[in-house]
């Protein structure tokens, strides 16, 4: 079965340690797919392989039917795979608006629109609605380095969306957020456009069950189980895995 993203038999070894061992992952258009597992299961490694920052020794990654194994992270971003890092990465000396504009440039703004200064410019046009959606209009002109942690996380999501991605890779987006901010984050993620598929790597199972419609469980570099959240929640195998490993 092929989907939007099809990873087959991904193997990553570091010396004698197998971080990933023949792992398969299939994500469909618009799917909300969660990747869970105890520490050291290989979740981040798999994410890195999909994003392009780690090269697997074996296996293939196909996006939209085409092999993207040789593509760099930047090239994959241009194809529509956007990644959000564990620590919110924004451009500190650029304003929030400029951050969103930079993120949008490769996919959206046609080359004729080289001029970005001025008021009702392409910049505001693009960034305004997104910032409003994230509740950041008030800080649109503030350098991103001055924003609070939670605001930077929101800005990062705005930036990821600005690139009109087909697939969003989220690496523990709730890390470091307060309870209120997490609630906000869940609202935002639930409101993501249906056209965007999401792969969510998360430790917090409550978020996983609130946000995903498919769950894959990894353990020690191998796929343990995959299916709907309810199945996974009640699976004794998964319970055992979490009991043995350190969550």
């Amino acid at each position: 079965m092929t989907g939007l993203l099809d990873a087959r038999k991904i193997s990553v070894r570091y010396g004698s340690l197998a971080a990933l061992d023949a792992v398969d992952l299939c994500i469909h258009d618009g799917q909300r797919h969660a990747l869970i597992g105890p520490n050291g299961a290989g979740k981040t490694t798999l994410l890195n392989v999909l994003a392009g920052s780690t090269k697997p020794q074996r296996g293939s990654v196909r996006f939209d039917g085409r092999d993207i194994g040789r593509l760099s992270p930047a090239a994959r971003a241009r194809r529509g795979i956007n990644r959000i890092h564990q620590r919110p990465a924004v451009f500190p000396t650029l304003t929030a608006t400029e951050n969103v504009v930079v993120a949008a440039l490769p996919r959206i703004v046609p080359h004729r629109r080289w001029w970005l200064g001025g008021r009702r410019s392409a910049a505001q046009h693009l960034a305004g609605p997104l910032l409003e959606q994230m509740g950041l209009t008030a800080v649109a002109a503030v350098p991103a380095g001055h924003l609070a942690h939670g605001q930077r996380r929101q800005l990062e999501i705005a930036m990821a969306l600005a690139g009109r991605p087909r697939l969003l890779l989220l690496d523990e987006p709730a890390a470091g957020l307060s309870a209120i901010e997490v609630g906000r984050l869940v609202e935002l993620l639930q409101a993501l456009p249906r056209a965007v598929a999401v792969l969510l790597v998360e430790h917090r199972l409550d978020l996983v069950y609130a946000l995903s419609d498919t769950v894959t469980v990894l353990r020690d570099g191998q796929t343990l189980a995959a299916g709907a959240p309810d199945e996974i929640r009640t699976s004794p195998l998964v319970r055992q895995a979490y009991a043995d490993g350190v969550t």
Partner: protein
Amino acid sequence: MRGEVIRRVRGGIAALVLVGLVVAPWVVDDYTTAILARTLALALVGVSVALLTGVAGMPTLGQTAPYAAGAYACAVVGSRVSDVGVVQLAVAAAAGALLAALTVPLVVHARGVIVLMITLAVGELVVVVLGRWRSVTGGTDGLAGIPAVRPFWGLPPLASDQARYLYALVVVATLVGAVLVLLRTRAGLVLRAGRDDETRLRASGHRVALHLSGAHIAAGAIAGAAGSLLVVAQQYVSPADFGFDTSALLLLGVVIGGTASVGGALVGAALVIAVRDWLFGVLPGHAPLVLGALFVATVYLLPTGMNRARGRLRQPEVPSLQPTVSEQPAVAELRR
């Protein structure tokens, strides 16, 4: 607050210097005007240094190379082909851009301090080459007797020091204006973003190497154009004009003016060069000593902007964002 004081002082000095530059020809004598014309040329090179160091995040000690290429190209063209100012300007800019394009593969994959080292080495080596390539550059004697320049077809040649100075002023103002405009475009925004966090920029899908190469070539063109202004001002060019000392002084000027500010770089570079010339006039034996102390003092008193340029804002209320990840790969490269 210290940052505020520094900003005010910079603004005040910049205003003074800019006014001074405009009224200079009517206020000072011919000899000083000629020196100021040369200072303007160097200040324009300083602008190219700021473009690379502050905006693109590639600190450089090698902009004297395209500067020299432009100056020699202009001298050769001026003596043999055309005495029209715009033509010489175009040829000089092209020469600077060409040299920059040739050296782009050497620097575009390097980051941070490695760029400093490579550009220093390249700059020095180019000057060595110029000094020994007698057939084209006249070796250490340089090229002299370059005829006076006509700014445009149909205009008379620049006959006085004042005229030459005003020509230089107009060219510098135009080019600086062009740079400021260019910085407002998407390319300028991408450069600034890359300076902040290159990995993040790549993650958004931008072709970083392309933008950095473009910045290098543009900076090379600006420095080349400055070379033509030097020739117009002096009507003479020799390798002595392009030593490593000059690169370091320009970098100092850029830091004094505020690393990421193009206008500040112009003012800062002009100031530093003027101070150097004044010191050599007043204390011929001990000028380097005083200059050296000036370097040390600047480092102690002013933020160099490098920490900011590498994505680590020193804001107390914001936790540190990115560790010096950007620097580590650069040094790690060498460790392989």
